């Protein structure tokens, strides 16, 4: 193959990779509403109890570079709000949980309501605003006593 064609292929590879990178970055922190009837039993997760009003259930692995940052963000948000708990489940040695919650990337965050039902699924690293919007929405929906 001559050098010109090889350089054209290399330039095309660079352009295609940049496009993939932009697409993947846009997909980070995407929010998806979940319509699920089943509620989560915290005992199956091997964690403490769920939050009284809402739970931020984060899935991580030991090899996830963005998980510690998301952990700090979600913990901070949970600390600021009453009745909101942040649980971080390490899937490194729990493929059964990855299977059950169909987690294909970490971090993945599930927002659970007061009954432990999954309401929102966030794939990738979320922004603070996204998480707070979801929690505000759950708070408004909840019956005020």
């Amino acid at each position: 193959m001559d050098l010109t064609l090889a350089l054209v292929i290399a330039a095309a590879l660079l352009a295609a990779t940049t496009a993939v990178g932009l697409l993947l970055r846009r997909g980070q922190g995407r929010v998806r509403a979940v319509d699920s009837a089943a509620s989560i039993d915290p005992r199956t997760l091997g964690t403490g109890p769920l939050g009284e009003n809402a739970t931020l259930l984060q899935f991580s692995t030991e090899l996830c570079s963005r998980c510690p940052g998301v952990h700090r963000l979600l913990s901070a948000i949970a600390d600021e709000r009453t009745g909101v708990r942040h649980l971080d489940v390490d899937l490194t040695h729990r493929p059964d949980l990855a299977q059950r919650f169909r987690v294909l990337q970490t971090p993945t965050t599930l927002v659970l309501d007061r009954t432990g039902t999954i309401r929102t699924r966030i794939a990738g690293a979320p922004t603070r605003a996204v998480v707070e919007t979801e929690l505000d929405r759950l708070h408004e929906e909840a019956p005020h006593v």
Partner: protein
Amino acid sequence: MSENARIDVRGPRFAASITAVLLLIATVLSLIGVATAHETSSPNGWLLPQVSVVARIVDPGFLLLLVIALLFVWGVASPRTAPWGVLFRRVVRPRLSPPTEFEDPRPPRFAQGVGLFVTAVGLVLHLAGVPWALPIAAAMAFVAAFLNAAFGLCLGCQLYLVLQRVGLIGRRGTASA
């Protein structure tokens, strides 16, 4: 554990930038080398199966990818002493503002292992006389390194859960309850 001491997040991205540049050069070199050359007298039309193993080894694309693969071995075996990390700590970091973000060293180390696997498969197939194995492996490793360097995305780390779910890696630890 000192081995799990947190590292400056900019270190692995600096290393990935150099690796990405080297891999793009390796892709070009292997495209113009013996891996993609045609030979009309060859039964399948490719030159590579016709040449000696020595000729496959002295191809510049093969030699550069071999060097990159050895650097991946170094990065997996001893991340603290790997050359790009040392260069970052000695020369680059003193010129930057103090680190604000730290990360666990295990994800970048795992990613080096994925890079090693991809490049090693390309090198072995090339030695076995498979045309195009070399530029394709170099290009795949380039994609992963470039996404890490430019976007902070770690494909190797993303792959972990997928590999775990198909049962290739990770312990089957369901007996914790």
